[in-house]
């Protein structure tokens, strides 16, 4: 009975969403407060009913109710309870339910934390989010019902969850990612609401900023978790594959990053409003595109479950409606008022949009590389694939340029920056980063070709530029922090005086530098060897000796595993003992490689045992991966920066009256130094 109840609650939630999409919006357009007052109760109701549906599906998993088709396909009675729980979003239907749960959660959060906003704005924002909810609830009810039953022949046991997904990373990766994707719908709703009532001003940007930063922070963590999971669970030690599904998450991330910076300029200086609105629409549209690419089955990967053409068509329709309606609205309502703010060529108002230009170039590259093969295949121009080299070749120069520009931009000021001042500020980061990059390349590189020409050949230029760009960002940030924190009452007082949003920016930039440094070093100086080994063999990888000590067996809850023992030493000193496994999952009869990893801040040692090549020999992958962890740690630091910026008190203390005053007073008379952090 419970599953049927789940379906009923979803239908009720749909009805509430329809009301939410229509009533408050109508009330706001006709100035009827009584109708606008429905926005918050409807939002709460929608959330409660979706939460009940989610709870019912979770219950079906935990009590092994295999009469529900989705549970039977995704679960198995042998699975430990925590995987049964995470299996709720291990397949298409359940992950959509999670998506909708988060959407209604975000809507509820907007309703709760927007008491100081004008009620017209709140009603319209909540209505737009209601429309998004209508789209997704229709999608789930029409094409992907998680509560479908298998009756009367209930299977005795479930088909088990794909072993790749039976992992801690999967418990948290999708929720984080969805929080990001769905969170961008808030920025989108604010943009649409601003277009509807024509109030596209600094106050609007200020309201959107915290929501955008939080969504961006979650998306950053979600992407990093996915990358980390692929690193240790797919078994081969790569951390980014430029797989279309990864790209699908990177697209809204790049666009969201651009949006955060563009919102900063719009809020502080009241310029580039139209562009900011367009970015908010683009970011949400890219989230929908991501959902389409992943869920429609046009791309085959671990993420695309049983493909069903109606799902793809529905999502494509949803994307098309969103884009067409938003852009039409944009065409009619985009601000026609010219901004009176003036600024010089080296001002912060120029550097921030320049960052947007680079990010848009990166976005374009990833977008083309991702969807061109699909288009080519669809129009029968040939079945092509675009491999990693394309992305590495085109993305690396842009990443380096973003870093260099960022370092300069940090020192720029609103309105006008003196050239001499800028040049003086850049002396220290320039010298410092060249020294660091040269040191890293000379000490980590291998120089075994003879003569000076050979030496020149061995220099890895991209490694040099990557490290240069990363250390440039970090040094510039540190110098900026040093200058800003000088105070008559001592350094500590100066540091404490800085706002949280300034520290958010610092962390965001340091995190980015860490990602660039990690990616550059591991890709250029990592060592990978694939060898054939039997117990007793020793292999050398860089400075490390990998000794294959023995093999044994182990029984897991729903798998049997072959366990190898590897003793790792460096110049005779023992470093670690690793136990990589080859698991055979009983129900699905799948083989899984479970790598043995000795993780560290500066390097990872990685061993994976692949297929047996003889009765007592295996193909083994041995890796030395310097700084690989910086790619994920950097992402984490970035995300923390985003969350920290949101906790800034200026988002809390200002009330509506000052917002109005501020909005009408745009452009700002003068930007105070304390506000220079964006």
């Amino acid at each position, binding site marked *: 009975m419970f599953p049927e109840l789940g379906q009923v609650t979803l239908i009720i939630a749909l009805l509430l969403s329809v009301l939410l999409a229509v009533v408050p919006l109508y009330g706001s357009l006709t100035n009827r407060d009584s109708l606008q007052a429905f926005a918050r109760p409807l939002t709460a109701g929608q959330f409660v009913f979706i939460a009940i549906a989610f709870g019912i599906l979770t219950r079906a998993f935990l009590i092994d109710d295999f009469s529900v088709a989705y549970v039977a396909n995704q679960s198995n009675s042998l699975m430990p309870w925590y995987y049964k729980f995470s299996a709720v979003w291990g397949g298409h239907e359940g992950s959509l339910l999670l998506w909708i749960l988060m959407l209604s959660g975000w809507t509820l959060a907007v309703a709760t934390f927007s008491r100081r906003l004008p009620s017209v704005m709140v009603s319209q924002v909540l209505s737009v989010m209601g429309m998004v909810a209508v789209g997704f609830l229709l999608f789930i009810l029409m094409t992907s019902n998680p509560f479908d039953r298998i009756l009367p022949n209930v299977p005795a046991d479930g088909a088990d969850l794909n072993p790749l997904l039976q992992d801690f990373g999967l418990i948290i990766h999708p929720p984080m990612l969805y929080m990001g994707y769905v969170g961008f719908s808030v920025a989108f709703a604010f943009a649409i609401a601003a277009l509807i009532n024509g109030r596209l001003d600094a106050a609007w940007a200020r309201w959107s900023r915290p929501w955008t930063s939080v969504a961006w922070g979650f998306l950053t963590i979600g992407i990093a978790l996915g990358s980390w999971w692929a690193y240790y669970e797919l078994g081969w030690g790569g951390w980014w594959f430029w797989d279309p599904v990864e790209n699908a998450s990177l697209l809204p991330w790049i666009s969201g990053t651009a949006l955060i910076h563009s919102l900063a300029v719009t809020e502080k200086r009241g310029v580039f409003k139209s562009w900011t609105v367009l970015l908010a629409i683009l970011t949400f549209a890219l989230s929908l595109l991501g959902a389409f690419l992943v869920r429609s089955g046009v791309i085959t990967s671990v993420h695309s479950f049983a493909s069903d053409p109606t799902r793809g068509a529905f999502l494509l329709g949803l994307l098309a409606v969103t884009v067409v309606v938003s852009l039409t609205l944009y065409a009619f309502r985009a601000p026609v008022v010219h901004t009176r703010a003036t600024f010089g060529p080296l001002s912060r108002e120029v550097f921030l949009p320049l960052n947007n230009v680079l990010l848009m170039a990166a976005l374009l590259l990833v977008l083309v590389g991702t969807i061109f093969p699909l288009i080519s295949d669809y129009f029968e121009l040939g079945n092509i694939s675009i*491999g990693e080299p394309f992305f590495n070749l085109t993305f690396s120069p842009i990443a380096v340029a973003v870093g260099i520009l960022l370092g300069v931009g940090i020192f720029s000021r609103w309105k006008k920056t003196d050239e001499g001042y800028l040049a003086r500020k850049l002396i220290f980061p320039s010298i410092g980063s060249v020294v660091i990059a040269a040191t890293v390349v000379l000490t980590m590189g291998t120089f075994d070709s003879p003569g000076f020409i050979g030496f020149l050949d061995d220099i890895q230029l991209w490694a040099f530029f990557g490290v240069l760009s990363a250390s440039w960002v970090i040094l510039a940030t540190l110098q900026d922090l040093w200058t800003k924190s000088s105070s008559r009452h001592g350094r500590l007082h100066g540091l404490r005086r800085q706002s949280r949003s300034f520290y958010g920016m610092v962390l965001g930039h340091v995190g980015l530098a860490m990602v660039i440094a990690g990616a550059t070093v591991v890709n250029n100086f990592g060592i990978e060897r694939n*060898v054939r080994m039997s117990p007793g063999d020793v292999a050398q990888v860089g400075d490390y000796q990998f000794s294959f000590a023995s093999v044994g067996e182990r029984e897991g809850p729903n798998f049997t595993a072959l366990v190898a023992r590897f003793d790792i030493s460096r110049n005779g000193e023992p470093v670690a003992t690793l136990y990589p496994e080859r698991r055979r999952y009983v129900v699905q009869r799948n083989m899984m490689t479970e790598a043995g990893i000795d993780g560290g801040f500066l390097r990872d040692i990685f061993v994976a045992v692949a297929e047996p*090549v003889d009765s007592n020999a295996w193909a083994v992958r041995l890796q030395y991966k310097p700084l690989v962890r910086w790619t994920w740690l950097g992402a984490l630091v970035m995300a923390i920066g985003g969350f920290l910026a949101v906790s800034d008190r200026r988002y809390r203390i200002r009330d509506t009256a000052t917002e109005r005053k501020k909005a009408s007073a745009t452009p700002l008379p003068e930007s105070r130094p304390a506000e220079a952090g964006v």
Partner: protein
Amino acid sequence: MNPARKRKLTIILFLLAGLAVAVGLTTYAFRQNINLFYDPTQIAEGEAPVDVRIRAGGMVEDGSVVRDPDSLKVEFRVTDFTSAVTVRYEGILPDLFAEGQGVVTTGQLNSDRVFVAEQVLAKHDEKYMPPEVSDALEKSKARAAEEGREMPEY
């Protein structure tokens, strides 16, 4: 030119420069990195270029996998049941690689018409067949039906 126009022009020029760089890089990288897919029959009939990075795929022929006893070198034949191509590879094969399974390989065809693979991809669970491979098998099946040949079940 008044300052506002001048500023606008600067911005537009920057945008155009960014776009030009992006388009230039994309086209350059595109030329190097587009890998077309060929099925074994196309390769046997000489449609596939030699010494160019391409992809090839089909089913791993039963009994065709030969391993080198001292290294990770391996040789196998990929077939669409009309023609087959020999693939040479050194490295780790995916977990689900096996005779009678679908694979997609990336690499180059050498002058002896042997496919030297840099990468071998297998399906990642038993329910899923790479779409290129199922297309190739469908084509081969249609051809077999025309010529009145028997196709094995796969």
